Structure formats: structure tokens, C-alpha cells
């Protein structure tokens, strides 16, 4: 059978002008049609069952869209706690890559033990943020959280990240590693696989590979997004989204492009593999601090002031791989339409950032070429398995 979660098929071709790339996706982008005809509460309870990998980001965008469509204004505390849930999930997703996938690129064993610890601590953070399990239900008014349990679990996760990834406390890393020189010192003085991989990419020059011009997804308001997601071309838009004719990028690199470290790396190395992997580490460390200090920035998920038609709602979440958007239309207590616009459809668009990045790769023998392609795909980070076909 085909994989029900969908896969990406990424095929590289040699042309007289270098490489060209074909990307085909079997991701089930129309699956959200399943919610048509269901009540909002049933939709909010079914959706995380189905989309259980980034369940918090999905459920948060879902409840945001349903609340909005039903004319409910969520409690600000509920909104803040939902954002923390999504942040903790993003930390877990990035740590999965860093602990399990990055060591493979050094021909080393994945750090499964640390990942088991990460999963358990993130689960404790979820429990502390949502003690009663009502936070992701439509109309949630009185969420309960435990600050002491949150502080304990988040601090343990920071310790784990210090030991297995950074070699120093996350807060100290954030304060210290803000320049090229400090980054260089850090990745040469620390023995974790993450630091060694980044040093290796820097020294070999492979960190520069895959540079593309910036084409970030702009901060579109609710009305603009809703018009695309409700228009006659909505089904095609969620499968192959573009803005003003260009497939845009929404990744940790676009979210952290203005930070001192990432902008210095981009200026020195371009928007290649190294800048992308460092943006993932920087996001992990920044969110770990934000969860502990309660200083999450609403960023691109802040509700916009645009007035949508009655019964229409939009929800957003800064998911690990980029901006996730849900649109719900509710009519007489039933979902009439439901659309999900996921970051992988932007970033792995056939003419999107991965495709452009792969086209810049220099020709090389197959083993080296395959490693570089895998590095680039991992750095842009799809949310499904992928197959590579290398010429």
C-alpha cells in the first residue's frame, strides 16, 4: 500500500545548465474535508487524533479557527498557554532532528536515550500547561496550569539540551553565541555531535551549499489568507501555495533571519545548509527560554484585525517547520468547510526553496551528491518521509 501519511519524491536531474529538481508529493492535503458536516467540538477532538505528530500546533490552529468562526474570543491566558504548548512541541521536533538525524551524518549512532528523555519531559510540560486537558477545546475559558510543574520540567529539558547538544546552559549559549567568532569558538570547543557536525560543515565548505535568494512568506493578514483558502482555486492553493506568483519560504531560517547570529552567518555563508541548521538550534534554545520565562512572542500567530465574514475563522500556529494555517467555515453549528495550509507545501513546492537550493549544488560523485542532497532536505525539513532519486 502507499504510505497513508504521504511521501515526498525528490528527483534530481542533470541538465546542460546544472541540476534541475522534480518534487512530487502524495501528502493528503485534502484530508481536512473529513471534518465537513461535523460539530466544531467533534472536529477539535478528532483533528489531533489524525494529525498526531504536530498535534499541539494542529489543535491550536484548529481551535483558533473554530473559536473565531463561532464568534468566540478566547481568554488571553488560554491563548498564551496554547502558544507555550506549540513552543514545547517545536522544541521536541527540533531535538528529534538534532539528536536522532544529525549524528547519522557523522556516521554515528542516534542519541535515542536523550530523545526518550526529551519526549518524557515534553509530555510533562504539556501536562503542566494544560492540567485539565481543556485548553485545546473550543470556547476554553478557564484553563488551569501548574507553574511549579512547568518550571521543573522545562528546567530539566534545558539541562538535557545543555548536556547532549550545547555543552553549556541554553541561556549562556544564547548570550554568548551571537557572533561568527563566538560560533566558531563554540562549535570547536564542544564535543556533542551537533557542535561537531556544524564545525565539519563550516570547515568543509558544505555549509555554504544550497544558497538561495530570500523569498520569505510575508505576514499576510487574515482577510488575505481567508480569500485564498475560500476562493475557487483553494484546493490547488493548499497543495501548491504561492504568493504573488512565487512559492514562499516559511522555516526557522525565515523566523530567525533578523537575529544577530543567523544574520551574521547568512552574510558570511549565505542562506545555505549551515545557516538553516543553526536557525533550528537557535529556535530550540530561544523557545526553551521563552517557555521558562513566559516571554513568548505572538509573532505571526497574533490575530489580525481584519474582519472576516460571519461563520468564517482563521487559526495560526508557528509549527516546527513553519507557519501552519487553518480555515474553518461554520454554518448552523456544523463545519461547512475546512482547509489546512501547512508549511511543507510552501517549502517543498515544486518551484520552492528546496528545488531552488538543489539546483545550485555542484556536480559530484554519487555518494557525496546524495549526502549533500540529504543534508539540504533535512535542513529545510519536510514533515514526511522522502525518497531521493539521484542521477
Amino acid at each position, binding site marked *: 500500500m502507499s504510505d497513508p501519511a504521504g511521501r515526498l519524491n525528490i528527483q534530481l536531474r542533470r541538465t546542460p545548465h546544472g541540476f534541475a529538481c522534480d518534487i512530487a508529493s502524495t501528502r*493528503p492535503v485534502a484530508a481536512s474535508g473529513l471534518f465537513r458536516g461535523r460539530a466544531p467540538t467533534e472536529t477539535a477532538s478528532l483533528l489531533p487524533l489524525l494529525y498526531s505528530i504536530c498535534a499541539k500546533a494542529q489543535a491550536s490552529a484548529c481551535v483558533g479557527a473554530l473559536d473565531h468562526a463561532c464568534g468566540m474570543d478566547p481568554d488571553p491566558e488560554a491563548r498564551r498557554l496554547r502558544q507555550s504548548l506549540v513552543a514545547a512541541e517545536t522544541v521536541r521536533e527540533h531535538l528529534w532532528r538534532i539528536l536522532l538525524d544529525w549524528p547519522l551524518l557523522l556516521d554515528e549512532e542516534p542519541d535515542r536515550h536523550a530523545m526518550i528523555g526529551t519526549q518524557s519531559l515534553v509530555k510533562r510540560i504539556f501536562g503542566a500547561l494544560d492540567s485539565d486537558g481543556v485548553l485545546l477545546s473550543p470556547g476554553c475559558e478557564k484553563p488551569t496550569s501548574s507553574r511549579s510543574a512547568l518550571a521543573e520540567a522545562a528546567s530539566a529539558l534545558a539541562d538535557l539540551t545543555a548536556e547532549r547538544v550545547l555543552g553549556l546552559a541554553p541561556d549562556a549559549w544564547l548570550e554568548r553565541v551571537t557572533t561568527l567568532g563566538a560560533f566558531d569558538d563554540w562549535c570547536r570547543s564542544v564535543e556533542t555531535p551537533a557542535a561537531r557536525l556544524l564545525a565539519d560543515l563550516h570547515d568543509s565548505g558544505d555549509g555554504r551549499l544550497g544558497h538561495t535568494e530570500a523569498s520569505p512568506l510575508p505576514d499576510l493578514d487574515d482577510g488575505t489568507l481567508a480569500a485564498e483558502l475560500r476562493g475557487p482555486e483553494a484546493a490547488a492553493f493548499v497543495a501548491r501555495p504561492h504568493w504573488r506568483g512565487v512559492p514562499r519560504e516559511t522555516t526557522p531560517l525565515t523566523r530567525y533571519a533578523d537575529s544577530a547570529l543567523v544574520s551574521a552567518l547568512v552574510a558570511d555563508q549565505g542562506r545555505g545548509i549551515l545557516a538553516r541548521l543553526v536557525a533550528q538550534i537557535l529556535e530550540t534554545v530561544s523557545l526553551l527560554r521563552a517557555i521558562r520565562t513566559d516571554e513568548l512572542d505572538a509573532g505571526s500567530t497574533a490575530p489580525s484585525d481584519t474582519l472576516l465574514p460571519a461563520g468564517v475563522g482563521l487559526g495560526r500556529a508557528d509549527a516546527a517547520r513553519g507557519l501552519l494555517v487553518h480555515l474553518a467555515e461554520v454554518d448552523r453549528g456544523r463545519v461547512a468547510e475546512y482547509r489546512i495550509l501547512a508549511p511543507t507545501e510552501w517549502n517543498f513546492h515544486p518551484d520552492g526553496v528546496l528545488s531552488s537550493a538543489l539546483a545550485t549544488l555542484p556536480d559530484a560523485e554519487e555518494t557525496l551528491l546524495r549526502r549533500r542532497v540529504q543534508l539540504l532536505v533535512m535542513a529545510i525539513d519536510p514533515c514526511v518521509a522522502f525518497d531521493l532519486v539521484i542521477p
Partner: protein
Amino acid sequence: MCLAIPAEIIEVDPDSDTAQVALGGVVKEISLALVTDVTVGDYVLVHVGYALNKISQDEAEHTLALIREIGMLQDESGASDASDAGAGRSA
């Protein structure tokens, strides 16, 4: 947008910390490195080769029914999504 598919464990190999699972009509080998206390007959959520966590039979059946409803899960044996190319994970 990322689905994790419930799968029933049909055989466990404690030496390699792997299991054979039934996923739709197909038997696949997965890693049990990230879960503890799973035995034959349990349901786990599978994502790119790893069991993520154990779930109840009720939850598994409910989720599989949803997946069937959207026409994605084809209970037919013999076919496989095997590929010898590189595969990655994510969510």
C-alpha cells in the same frame, strides 16, 4: 499536516529493539527505541520507522476508521512503499 498511523505489534525482537507491525495490509519492521513496555497485540503510533507511543485499541481503531474514511488507507497486501532511497522523518 502530518499523520502518524496506528499499527498493531505482531512480533517483537528484544535483541534488536525492533518489532514487526501490521500497518494496513502490510507488515513492516519498526524501531522500538523510543518506547518502553510494548508487547505483541499493543497498538503504537508509527512515524518514519519509529514507534512514537503506545495507544489504546479504541483510539487506534477510531483513528484508523478516520483514515479509511478519507480514503487513504488501503487494506490490501502485497504492495509496499519500500524504497531503497534515502528516507527522512519529521512531523
